Structure formats: structure tokens, C-alpha cells
């Protein structure tokens, strides 16, 4: 510890603390522009200059570490003049188009100009005047407003590790740009927007739609993937205008991904249904919520009387909140009296590590999952470990992913070859001697090893289990897919195997099915049986949209999205986080639906979050006394039992390996209703390697016929040089592709132009 004096106030801080942090400790704030505490010190803007007693030179507070006995002065006439000049110099080239700039009102440069009191620029103003760059679908780049603080370049390098933008040229010609002025193509995470202190990088989804001072804000949790990022929802009236990072709160350090930041438009979509529908004689009729519930209850009662409670099934979506999932399960078990509760999730695999543990890990292995696309913030944690902590990172995946740049070892090949490599790696961890022994040795000798895997791929899970059995200190991260994949299982919606539902449907066992928010037709495991849904006595579907499944329903009730309700989600760490209602779109929540049906059936279930939570705390042992604002559930196990060892090899016949592609813009079928995401990726596209495309004579966008055992379809192709020869990839979770992967995540297929 060293002692420093800031403006006469003494503070004790650890050695090597920056002056800026020491000042913060002393309760003194120093203006900054280029500084970001998450990034390495840079010192580009000179706004944070301070005086050090006994040193004639001014020091940049954001780059200078304190020394013992240092005396710092942060306010003086000299400093005021210096800071004012620094801002004046920036304003020479910075256009003063604040009235039409999206940043107006929350611009650091604007605030600093006000703070230091620049009323007139003494120099000849020469505002830059270059065209605005719109090559990125989500990020507008107005290079004229740039003050070259370098935060965007640094965050893209130090955190995201994509390095999609860089400083170009030198001296006064310096600009932020791309290689050979190519179109800006990146992961679209928008981290650069979040750190831009001026209006140089703007969110195109929010562009020119509102002014920040008109917006109200609630803190909530993103409702798309399982990372559970804390976000701020900015809204006015009943419209969500943007979803913004919140660096102060939560587990994501203010980082977000493309779908989280730009994919919220489905909330405001005009394609959303507002009225319930009841189908009679094949014709849909708009009815009120109460009427729809009455029809559903009547049918439900009839089925229960004639065919018994066991002929009723309840399907719960992992999009629901914990409270809603609990109510749905309770409705099934206690009110209807059926154990047939299904979801795509199971209780076989539960969370095993936190994101922080991944960040702090000293050796990470990623098994057969494109984690930066599937769970981007978990991907950032892996990158952090691999880059900042220099953790040896081993990745197994059929094609190179964004982790290539930080991985010590990246094993690619056909899915079968990757499978064999992973088996050998797991064997090596268990003590066998083979070519992966050295790599495995790094994992076993590490102090805080982490293995990330795809829990939906049983063969991968079996390998992860084998590794953890051989090396007990390995922390496992099953990368669950949806926002509440973990929570609905905790609430009792994951006890049954998902395939039992499709089997029951096909056997005609179910007469009434209540679907809470799930799009059954688009799920690989169910899609083949989904056609049986339309013949049911009762198919109740709740969904914000008229999904493929909802279109088959005889009772459809539109419901709220995550921005329109209170509740909680449990993320892939097993962390329970509260979500908050921002807007009201005039539709009910799934909780209201469950509660109304229970009432119709003659039982009382509360829909109110507080009441449901106290029920959960009483009835769900894992959640008794849980902190609903960020508490982590202590799970008894990661693997419920031994995962049945599958060989995991590609099934079927064909020349190509076809495996599931992870998409950064979609997690499931929900985000397809966001027009700007759909513009970039709207329908399934077949990824194919350069060589194969050449052999087949394909160009980007050409349509090909893909066929294999039990499926065939036509898709446009996208040529990606990263895709391994002999392999192609298609996304899951689209009705057009769901049927392909019903027997596994990798199959053989033929491709014809």
C-alpha cells in the first residue's frame, strides 16, 4: 500500500494504482474522455491531466500509477486552461451538429465542453466532411465526429478480439477504418457503440428515432440467450426504443451481443397479435381473453372427464420466467392432475460454473460448440481467459470459429474426425497416452480448468462427463441455449425426456395440449410430430406471435415478451436474476393465462410475482431463501447420472457432413420477427467451404437441394472459407431445417445444384 494526497486528502491505495482510481478512492472525480476502466490505459485525449506537486510536467491521471507520498492537485487555474485547450483542439475538426446527432444529450464531448466552459473556439474551425459509412447493417460510422480516443478499436481488440476496425494512416490523417476500406463486417456485437464517447458510432436500429431525455429506463435481464446479461431497456410510452448496456450491474461488464443489442424490435413488431383467437369449424374468430380461457377450460374439462388427466400434456418454453414456469407446472400437476410436462430442456445436466470462473480460468477446453455465436458473452469470458490470463485454450469444432485467434490448439476436420479427436482428448485426460496427452496435461495440471460443452449433444456431454470424472477440479459449463433453459427445469418442467412428447403425440395419447410459449414445429426434437397437433381436441398456444405452432391452435392467446413482465430468469451459471416490466402492449402474461385456466378449473393460482415467489421458496428446495437479484442456486450435481455413451458419429448416407450452425443473430425462432435481424439473416442459409463450392460451381446465393435420410430441402448457399471441405452447416430452429436434426446434431447429406 502507498499513501497519496489528492487535493490535500490522504488515501491509502495498493501499489500501481492509477492516479484516476486513487482520486476516485478519495472522492475526487477527474474528467476523462478516452479512459475506460475495462480497457488497458491509453492516454490519448489529455483531458485528465493533473498536477503533481514538485513535478513541472502535467501527468495523465489515466495512465500514471501513483507512488508513495505523491501529491496530486486536480483543480487549478492552470489545469482549467489546459483542459479547456484540449477540448478546444478537439472541436477544431469535430462538427457541431449536435442538434441532429444521435448522441446529443449523452455525449461525453458535449458534457466536457459544458464542464470546462468552452464558449468559443479560438482556432479556425475546420469540421471534417466525409460521407457517413453505412456498410455495417447495425452500426453507423460517422468518421467526422470521431475524436480518436481509440475506445472502439481497443474494445474490439482487447475484449471482443475480432479486430474488425483499426487505426489507419498516421498523424493528422489518422482515421478509424477497415482494411482496404472494405465494408465493415464483424460480429455486430456493438461493443464499439457502447464505448464511443461521441456520435461517431451509432446504433442504426435506434438512429433518429428518439432523444435520450425522452426515454424512461428500467434495468432488466436480456431475454434471448442463456448468458443472462443485465441490460437497460429504454422506452417511451409503450414502445421500446433501445436496449443498452449497463456496465455497473450484473455479470456481463456491460458487454452485449448482436441479438441482445439490435434484436429487440420483435417487442414493437406490428406483426404481433393483440387479440385471442378461437378456432371453430376451421375458422378462426377473434375473441376476448376471458372468452378464450372459457373455451379452453371447457375443452380441457371435457378431455379430462372423457379421456382422463393423463391425456393432457403441458409444454413449457424456456422463454418463460421462473414464476410462469412454476405456475404452468403447478397447473399441470395440481390442477389438471397430469405429470405430462414437457420442454426442450431436461434435468440431466445442470450448471457447473460461473462466468467469472471461466474468466479467471487458467486452462479452457471448448468441446464442439461455436460458443461465441451460441452464447456470445460466455464466448467473451472464454476469450478473456485465453487472452488476458493466457489460459491455454483448446477448441474442438468442425470449422474454425472466432476463437481461432486466441486458441493455443484448434482442432478442425469433419465432424467425425473432430469426434475422434475429442474422444482421444478425453482418453488422454483420463490417463491414456496419445497425441493429445500434452494438451490434456495442460488441463489436468491447471489449477482452475474449465470445460465448455453443448449439453444438447449427448455424445459431447458424455465426453465432458468423462473428463470431469478423470479430473475432479474441472469446472463444467453446459452452454444452455435459451434465457431460462435452466430455470424452467428447476421449476419442474424438465423431468421428462422431450422425445416422450412426440411419441405420445404420434401414438395419439394426448387429446389436449397446452403450449406455453413454445414453437413446437420449429424444434428439431418435435417437428416431425407437430402435424399431429392440429387434430387435437384442445391445442392451446400462448405466444407473442402467430408462430407455426400457434397457427395450428384452436385456442390462441397472445402473451407478453420479456420486456412486458416482471419475474426472473436463471442463466447458464444458475444465477437467478430479476427482470422488470418496461412497457405494456395490452396483452396478458403467461402467468395470467395459467392462473385464469386454474380459476376456470376451480382452483386458485396467483399470477402476482411476489405471491408466486413465496410459493416457489416453499415448494422448490433449491430456491428456498434464494436472492432473486443475482443469487446463485447451489445445484447438487452437474450430471444427474451417467450419460448414455453414444458414438456421436454422423448418421445416414451422403457425400457431405451436415451439422448445425450457430447463429449470432438468432437464438431460436423469436428473433426472426425483428426486421433488422431478418434483413441480415432471415431464412436458413447453407454454409459451404470454398473448395466444395467451386467443385459444385456455386456462387453466393445460389440455391441448392439438400437431401439425406428422411429430409430434403432447398436453401441458398453462403460460401465461407472457414468451413472444412466435405462439410456444410445449416441452422436449427427454423421450421425449414428443424426436421433435419431430429436424430442428432450431425447427419450425412447430398447436395445438388
Amino acid at each position, binding site marked *: 500500500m502507498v499513501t497519496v494526497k489528492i487535493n490535500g486528502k490522504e488515501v491509502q491505495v495498493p501499489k500501481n494504482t492509477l492516479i484516476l482510481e486513487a482520486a476516485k478512492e478519495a472522492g475526487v472525480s477527474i474528467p476523462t474522455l478516452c479512459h475506460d476502466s475495462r480497457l488497458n490505459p491509453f492516454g490519448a485525449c489529455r483531458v485528465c491531466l493533473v498536477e503533481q506537486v514538485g513535478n513541472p510536467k502535467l501527468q495523465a491521471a489515466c495512465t500514471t500509477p501513483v507512488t508513495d507520498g505523491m501529491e496530486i492537485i486536480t483543480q487549478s487555474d492552470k489545469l482549467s486552461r489546459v483542459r479547456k485547450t484540449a477540448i478546444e483542439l478537439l472541436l477544431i475538426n469535430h462538427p457541431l451538429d449536435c442538434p441532429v446527432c444521435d448522441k446529443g444529450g449523452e455525449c461525453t464531448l458535449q458534457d466536457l465542453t459544458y464542464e470546462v466552459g468552452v464558449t468559443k473556439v479560438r482556432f479556425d474551425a475546420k469540421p471534417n466532411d466525409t460521407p457517413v459509412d453505412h456498410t455495417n447493417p447495425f452500426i453507423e460510422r460517422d468518421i467526422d465526429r470521431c475524436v480518436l480516443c481509440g475506445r472502439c478499436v481497443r474494445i474490439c481488440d482487447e475484449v471482443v478480439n475480432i479486430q474488425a476496425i483499426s487505426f*489507419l494512416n498516421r498523424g493528422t490523417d489518422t482515421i478509424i477504418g477497415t482494411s482496404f476500406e472494405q465494408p465493415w463486417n464483424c460480429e455486430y456485437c456493438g461493443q464499439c457503440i457502447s464505448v464511443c464517447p461521441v456520435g461517431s458510432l451509432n446504433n442504426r436500429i435506434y438512429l433518429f428515432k428518439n432523444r435520450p431525455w425522452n426515454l424512461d429506463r428500467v434495468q432488466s435481464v436480456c431475454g434471448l440467450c442463456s448468458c443472462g446479461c443485465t441490460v437497460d431497456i429504454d422506452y417511451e410510452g409503450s414502445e421500446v426504443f433501445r436496449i443498452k448496456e449497463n456496465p455497473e450491474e450484473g455479470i456481463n461488464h456491460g458487454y452485449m451481443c448482436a441479438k441482445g443489442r439490435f434484436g429487440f424490435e420483435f417487442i414493437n413488431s406490428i406483426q404481433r397479435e393483440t387479440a385471442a383467437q378461437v378456432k371453430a369449424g376451421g375458422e378462426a374468430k377473434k375473441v376476448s381473453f376471458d372468452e378464450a380461457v372459457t373455451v379452453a377450460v371447457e375443452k380441457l374439462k371435457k378431455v379430462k372427464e372423457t379421456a382422463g388427466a393423463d391425456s393432457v400434456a403441458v409444454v413449457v418454453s424456456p422463454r418463460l420466467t421462473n414464476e410462469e414456469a412454476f405456475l404452468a407446472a403447478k397447473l399441470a400437476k395440481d390442477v389438471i392432475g397430469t405429470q405430462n410436462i414437457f420442454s426442450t430442456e431436461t434435468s440431466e445436466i445442470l450448471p457447473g460454473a460461473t462466468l467469472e470462473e471461466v474468466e479467471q480460468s487458467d486452462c479452457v477446453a471448448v468441446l464442439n460448440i461455436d460458443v461465441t455465436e451460441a452464447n456470445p458473452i460466455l464466448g467473451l469470458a472464454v476469450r478473456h481467459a485465453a487472452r488476458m490470463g493466457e489460459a491455454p485454450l483448446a477448441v474442438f469444432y468442425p470449422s474454425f470459429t472466432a476463437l481461432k485467434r486466441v486458441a493455443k490448439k484448434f482442432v478442425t476436420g469433419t465432424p467425425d474426425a473432430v469426434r475422434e479427436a475429442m474422444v482421444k482428448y478425453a482418453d488422454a485426460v483420463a490417463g491414456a497416452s496419445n497425441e493429445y496427452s500434452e494438451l490434456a496435461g495442460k488441463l489436468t495440471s491447471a489449477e482452475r480448468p474449465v470445460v465448455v460443452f453443448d449439453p444438447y449433444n449427448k455424445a459431447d456431454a458424455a465426453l465432458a462427463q468423462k473428463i470431469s470424472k478423470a479430473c475432479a477440479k474441472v469446472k463444467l459449463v453446459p452452454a444452455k441455449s435459451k434465457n431460462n433453459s435452466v430455470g424452467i427445469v428447476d421449476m419442474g418442467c424438465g423431468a421428462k425426456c422431450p422425445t416422450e412428447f412426440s411419441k405420445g403425440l404420434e401414438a395419439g395419447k394426448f387429446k389436449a395440449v397446452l403450449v406455453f410459449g413454445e414453437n413446437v414445429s420449429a424444434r428439431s426434437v418435435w417437428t416431425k410430430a407437430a402435424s399431429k397437433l392440429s387434430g387435437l381436441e384442445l391445442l392451446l398456444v400462448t405466444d407473442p406471435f402467430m408462430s407455426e405452432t400457434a397457427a395450428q391452435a384452436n385456442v390462441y392467446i397472445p402473451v407478453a415478451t420479456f420486456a412486458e413482465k416482471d419475474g426472473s430468469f436463471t442463466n447458464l451459471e444458475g444465477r437467478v436474476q430479476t427482470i422488470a416490466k418496461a412497457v405494456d402492449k395490452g396483452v396478458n402474461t403467461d402467468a395470467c393465462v395459467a392462473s385464469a385456466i386454474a380459476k376456470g378449473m376451480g382452483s386458485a393460482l396467483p399470477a402476482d410475482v411476489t405471491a408466486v415467489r413465496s410459493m416457489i421458496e416453499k415448494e422448490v428446495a433449491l430456491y428456498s431463501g434464494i436472492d432473486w437479484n443475482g443469487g446463485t442456486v447451489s445445484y447438487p450435481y452437474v450430471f444427474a447420472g451417467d450419460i448414455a455413451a453414444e458414438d456421436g458419429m454422423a448418421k445416414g448416407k451422403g457425400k457431405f457432413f451436415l451439422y448445425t450452425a450457430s447463429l449470432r443473430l438468432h437464438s431460436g425462432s423469436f428473433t426472426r420477427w425483428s426486421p433488422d435481424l431478418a434483413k441480415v439473416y432471415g431464412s436458413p442459409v447453407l454454409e459451404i467451404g470454398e473448395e466444395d463450392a467451386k467443385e459444385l460451381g456455386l456462387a453466393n446465393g445460389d440455391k441448392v437441394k439438400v437431401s439425406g435420410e428422411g429430409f430434403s430441402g432447398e436453401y441458398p448457399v453462403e460460401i465461407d472459407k472457414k468451413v472444412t471441405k466435405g462439410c456444410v452447416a445449416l441452422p436449427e430452429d427454423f421450421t425449414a431445417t428443424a426436421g433435419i436434426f431430429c436424430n442428432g446434431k450431425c447427419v450425412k447429406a447430398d447436395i445438388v445444384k
Partner: protein
Amino acid sequence: MANDVKETESANKEIDFTACDEICEKYKDWKGATIPVLQQVQEAYGYLFSEIVERIADNLNMSAHQIYGVITFYAQFYTQPRGKYIIRVCRGTACHVQGSGRISEIVNEEFHIRNGETSADLKFTLEEVSCIGACGMAPVIMINNKTYGNLKPEEARKIFRDYAELQG
């Protein structure tokens, strides 16, 4: 301009990356290898075009954008094709007084190129440089590594024409 280069390169059928790959392989596990790699690749290919930069990026496991940042920072790297003969016209004070401006004009008259430009047949590039340290020979020019001093305008023209007639 950058796009033009790209088009001509891809029109020029397949690019042979062997030399580039060999250079990168040599420096693969070095830290701070970017500049030597770029220098040697430029030596081998004449200039750094977008395909070759992408290739270097892939080989060194870096981002092409970062490498382009390095390329544009240093005056020694070129992203445009360069002529077989680089004509460096000294524009330092002594040469200026001795009429080096006229020599630049003659280059333009002969080959229709200005400072920094390359003739369409890729034979000549004109570079006006600050001082090459041979003020006693003012006005002085260099053509590749050969120096010509005390030039009269018409002598310079003759030298240029001689070079233009050289084969290859």
C-alpha cells in the same frame, strides 16, 4: 482506388501465395514479426494488395484490419502497384534552387505521372523526396539505386527515355 487494385488482382487469375506462406512460416511464432513479414512479402510481390494482406493475416493468426493499420502507418509499405523503376526526384532546398521542379515536370511529360503515381505500363513510379543528401550534385535524382546528378532538364529527359527503351 483500393477497389480497383482488388479487381485487377482477382482478374489476374490465381495468385501464387507460396512465397508469402514461406515468409510467414519463418516468423510464425515470433512476437512482433509483422513488420519484417510485410517487408519481405512486399519485396517478393512488389506491393501489398488486399488478397496478400488477408493471407498474411490468416497465416499470422491476426486481423487483416490491424495489419492494414500497420501498413498505412509506415511510409515504406505500398498498397498500390509500383513501377519497375522508381524515380526519386530530390525536392530539397538545394535541388529546388537548381530547378528540380522542372525535372518532375519532365517525368510527367514523358510518363504522365505525378508524385506517388505509377505509369499505366507499371514501368515508372515518381516519388518526390525531401533530400537524398547529395546537395553537391543538385539537382539530383535516383532511379532505383542509381544516382544522376548535376542534371540539365534535357539530360534528364534523355535518361528517362533510355530507361523507357530498356526491355522488360
